[in-house]
Structures are given as structure tokens and as C-alpha cells.
């Protein structure tokens, strides 16, 4: 086999598909192969003898000097990678037609050239074209980023979907309860109606019976028959007619009062749930507050004192039944916060063209950490099974739908204040779309 001669090896170096540059400690070029000449446009005759950073101004002087110094001093290789220094030399991209890269990405290796005697006088810079890999990697990185962004967006959407679903469930539940309540209210209304009317008749009849009775007694007294008189008086005494006369009237009056209350509760229950009306109309908020109080009265009456501070407010365009639900949530929450013997203030009024309903309590207050999570679905500080964590989030979304605001401020140990702000009229288009 023929030995490969030095001239052949020199040709290899000259023509290899790699940049090969020999540099001394000052960074002066001693060798410049074809790859370098072709890509830089500077012929070897011109390049040799020049300082690299002057020949190629894009190579930082300080950087290249330090690099060479480290190779000479440590007698060790040094590297430059496209990830950190993409374009050491300002060469045009190696895919002029199909690639996106304007410039060539390069990896460089510096290694000390050990002469026969062991001395090192030159450093070889070997430059490889990393454009293909770099472009692919950059595209992949970009794609990764895109995928990640999409994934994040999906996670966000899924979370929103879950929240919406939860709210839907809750509002469906409320609607079902409302429907049930309305049905029951209707059923109660009929018997209450005829009992009431019967009671009215009964009162009339009794009045008449007693009038007749009194007449009889007057007639008997007029006879002047002492025997008959004493017999009648004994009978009267035995039956305690005086008391009966009084008490029957009392009983009937009380029963009528009771029936009136039943009627009012039934009406309020129907108003409150108002299943039939998910329509926008002009709602009287005071009326809404009162019916709500009536419905939940049983739950709060023994524990809390309600103080109404109603202002002078106009009717508001709203879905009344939904607002009632908000009031109910706020008042019940307040009653839970205050516990035994607390106070709840219901204040209404107008400010800057908005109508507000304020539910304030002197209860335990809300921890600042929890304040900004209040309206999150499923967020609750109540023990397991006590609260679903949906009440306030539902209230929030209802008020949102009304183009209003639900604000809260609270001091731990002093109490909380929730304020519902509502516009008097809904923006025309929105009201139609949402209805």
C-alpha cells in the first residue's frame, strides 16, 4: 500500500468540508483553507498574515485572544457552540434556497498543535457547519413552546369548563328547588283559600249565634221569673259563656292572622323562586329583600337581629328571582358569620347612578388570604358538608350577568360588608341576549 505523502495530506486539509484555520498566540492567521475562503470571500493569499479579528471583524478581539490564551496555557482544547454563539463567523446560510436561516450556524473547536519537539506555537481552529441541526432544533424548540402554550390554554379552558358546569349544576339545583317550592305554594294556596273563606263565614255565623243568645237572655230577664233566671245563670256559668264569647272571637281572629301569614309566605315563596320568570323586568329590590327574608326567616330569626336601613331607590331592570338568590346567599352567609346574637344590616341606596344593596354583619370577618378566593367555585371555609363553596361564585356570576359588581370588604373580628352594585337599566343588546 502506498504511503500517503505530505502534499496529499495538505490537499485534504485544503479541501476538506470543514473550516480549518491556524492561528498563533496573537490570533494571526497562518493557514486558511478553501472552506474559509469560499464562505468568507477572502482568498488564502489575502488572509494569511492578517489578525483574525481584523480580517473578520465579527470575531470579538478580546474573546478570541482569551480563547487562544487558554488553549496555549492549559494545552487543552476549547470550544464554541452554536447554542451560545450561533454565528462566530459572519457566513451566509448553507441552505440558500430551502432553509430559513440567513446565516450559517457554526460549532468551533480550538486545539493546540503540538510540534515534534513538544512545543506549541499554533492553535488550529476547526469550524463545522451546524446549520441543519440548529435549524431543526430551533424549529423543535419553537414547536415545543407552541405546544406548551396550547397545553396551558387547554388546562385553562378545562378549568373554566369545570367551573361553569359546577355553577350550572348549582343554578339548576336552585331552579328545581324553586319549581318545587312554587308547586307546593300553589297546592297550599287552595286549601288555605277555602279555610280562610270558611273562617270568615264561621266568624259571621258565630257573631249571629252570640247575638241570638244575648237576645234570649234579655228576653228571659224581662219575664221576671227568678227560677228561670237562676237556671239560665247556672247554665251560663257551667258553660262559661262569657269566656266563650270572648275567646271564640279571639281564636277566630288569631286563626285569620295565622292564615294571613301562611298566605304571605306562600306568595313570597312564589315570588322568590319565580320559576316562570327568568325574564328581565323592573324589580323592586326592597320587595325582593323582604320576600327573601320571609323565606329564610325560620333559619335566622332566633339568632340574628336584622336591621333594615332602606333608602329611596328606583326599580331596577333585573331578573328578580336571581337577585333574590344573591340576597339569600349573602344574608345566610352573614348569619353564619355572626352566630348567636349578632346583627345584620341591610342598607340600600343609590350612588353615582348605581343602585346598591349592602349586607353588613358584625361577625367574624374574612381572613385576608381568603378574600381574593371568595368567589372561586368550590372555595369554602365551612366544614365538610356545610357549604358547597358555590353560593358566592353563583352570586358573583348572577351579578356579572346583570352588568353589576359584587364588592366585599372585611376586617377580621369586626365583620364583613358585601355590596351589590346594579345599574338601573341593562345595556339594551346585552339584556336581550342574556334573557
Amino acid at each position: 500500500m502506498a504511503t500517503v505523502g505530505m502534499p496529499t495530506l495538505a490537499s485534504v486539509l485544503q479541501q476538506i468540508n470543514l473550516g480549518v484555520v491556524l492561528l498563533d498566540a496573537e490570533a494571526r492567521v497562518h493557514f486558511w483553507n478553501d472552506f474559509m475562503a469560499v464562505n468568507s470571500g477572502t482568498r488564502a493569499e489575502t488572509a494569511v498574515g492578517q489578525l483574525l479579528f481584523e480580517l473578520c471583524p465579527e470575531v470579538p478581539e478580546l474573546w478570541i485572544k482569551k480563547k487562544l490564551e487558554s488553549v496555549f496555557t492549559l494545552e487543552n482544547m476549547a470550544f464554541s457552540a452554536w447554542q451560545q454563539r450561533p454565528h462566530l463567523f459572519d457566513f451566509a446560510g448553507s441552505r440558500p434556497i430551502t432553509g430559513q436561516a440567513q446565516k450559517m450556524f457554526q460549532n468551533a473547536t480550538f486545539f493546540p498543535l503540538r510540534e515534534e519537539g513538544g512545543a506549541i506555537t499554533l492553535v488550529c481552529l476547526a469550524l463545522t457547519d451546524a446549520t441543519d441541526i440548529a435549524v431543526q432544533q430551533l424549529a423543535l424548540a419553537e414547536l415545543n413552546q407552541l405546544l406548551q402554550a396550547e397545553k396551558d390554554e387547554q388546562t385553562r379552558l378545562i378549568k373554566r369548563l369545570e367551573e361553569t358546569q359546577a355553577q350550572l349544576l348549582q343554578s339548576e339545583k336552585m331552579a328545581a328547588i324553586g319549581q318545587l317550592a312554587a308547586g307546593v305554594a300553589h297546592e297550599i294556596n287552595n286549601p288555605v283559600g277555602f279555610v280562610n273563606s270558611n273562617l270568615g263565614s264561621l266568624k259571621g255565623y258565630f257573631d249571629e249565634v252570640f247575638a241570638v243568645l244575648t237576645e234570649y237572655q234579655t228576653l228571659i230577664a224581662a219575664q221576671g221569673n227568678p227560677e228561670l233566671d237562676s237556671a239560665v245563670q247556672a247554665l251560663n256559668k257551667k258553660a262559661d259563656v262569657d269566656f266563650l264569647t270572648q275567646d271564640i272571637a279571639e281564636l277566630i281572629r288569631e286563626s285569620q292572622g295565622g292564615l294571613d301569614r301562611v298566605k304571605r309566605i306562600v306568595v313570597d315563596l312564589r315570588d322568590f323562586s319565580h320559576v316562570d320568570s327568568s325574564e328581565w323586568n323592573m324589580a323592586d329590590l326592597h320587595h325582593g329583600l323582604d320576600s327573601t327574608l320571609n323565606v329564610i326567616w325560620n333559619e335566622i330569626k332566633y339568632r340574628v337581629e336584622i336591621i333594615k336601613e332602606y333608602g329611596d331607590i328606583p326599580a331596577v331592570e333585573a331578573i328578580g328571582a336571581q337577585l333574590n338568590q344573591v340576597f339569600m346567599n349573602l344574608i345566610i352567609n352573614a348569619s353564619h358569620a355572626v352566630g348567636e346574637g349578632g346583627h345584620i344590616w341591610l342598607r340600600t341606596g343609590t350612588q353615582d347612578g348605581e343602585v346598591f344593596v349592602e349586607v353588613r354583619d358584625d361577625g367574624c370577618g374574612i381572613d385576608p388570604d381568603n378574600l381574593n378566593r371568595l368567589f372561586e367555585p368550590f372555595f369554602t371555609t365551612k366544614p365538610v358538608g356545610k357549604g358547597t363553596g358555590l353560593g358566592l361564585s353563583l352570586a358573583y356570576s348572577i351579578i356579572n350577568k346583570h352588568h353589576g359588581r359584587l364588592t366585599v370588604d372585611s376586617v377580621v373580628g369586626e365583620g364583613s360588608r358585601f355590596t351589590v352594585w346594579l345599574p338601573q337599566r341593562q345595556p339594551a343588546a346585552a339584556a336581550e341576549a342574556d334573557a
Partner: protein
Amino acid sequence: MSQLTVLSEDQRDALQELMNVAMGQSADRLARLTSTFVTLSVPRVHAVTDTLDKVLDLLGLGKEAMLVTRQSFLGKLRGEVLVCFGEQGASELSGLMGYGDDVDASTQDELLMDVTNILTGACINGLAQQIQTMVSYGSPSLMARAKSLREVLQEQILQGYQSLVLEVRFEVESHSFMCDLLVCITDDSAAVVIEAVDQLLSDF
């Protein structure tokens, strides 16, 4: 059975001494390069035959988040060097290494690669000379950012892979800079090192 598990007390001492000589030469060169006073700690030798957790406990640098780079050395002596930087990386050294004081993110990475390469070269060349073998190097790369070494190793190192870990601490006092080098030598080439150690021992 690996030779590592049966590394005798004498062998371990000799290896430590061998590394120490190599490090001394490296420190001298680094000092000349950076014109500052450089300290390289006496290397500690661990045979990674135990579980990873145990090794990390021994090294005492498993937990805190750091920047980790790596570089391969190839030949009869084969393995990788992991360099653990603090979260600041090597920005302290930018002046010393020929970068301006005002360095952007990619320059900071380049600086890390440079420091990794120089330290790896210094240690491995020293060791290779001591055992009279030739080495070549791959280019350094970033392995992890803001992760603990434990995470990094669990993600990227084959479990149960036996190797020899040499731990060296590198300090540049004037620049409040410090990093740890883990020189991991593969099981098979560790045999080469141990052979050289035995040679050294028999010479005494």
C-alpha cells in the same frame, strides 16, 4: 464483580494522591491563565456502587438548586465531568474570561461552557498524564438550570451504573466564585486508573 467495590484503603489513598498531583498542576495553570489565586481542593474519591441517594449524601450537595454543566472525555479514560455552579453561574468570572462586565444570557451560558471546558481539561489532562494515556474531549453543554443535583442525576444518569466519582472543589478567592466538579469515570476505564494506581503502589 466490579473492581470499584473492592477498592482498598491503599488504592484509595494512592488514587487521591494521584489526583492531587494532577490538580496541583491544573491549579497552577489556571492561576496563570486568570492571573488570580486559584484553589483546587484535595479530591475526594467515591465509588458509586451505593445507591444514588447515599452518594449525594456523601457529596453533601444534593438539595439546593444549581446550574449543572457536563463535558465528556473520551479514550481509554472515559467518562463525564459534571460541574455544579451556584445559581449565579460564573458571571463573577466574566472579566477574567475575556467577556465584558455586561453580559447577556447567551454570553453567560458561553462563559459557563468555557469554565466547564477549562476545569475539565485541567483535571482530566492532569489525570491522563499521570496514567500516561491520551484523551480527547466532547464539547461541553448545559445539563440543567435551577434544579437540584439529585433531580438532575435521577433524570439523566442510568441507575445502577457503576463509576468512580472524584469530587473537586474549585475556588477563585478574589472573585468570590466557587464550583464543584464531579469527575465520573466509567466502570471499565476506572480499571485503567486502578491499574495505574497499583503500578504506582508497587513502585514504592
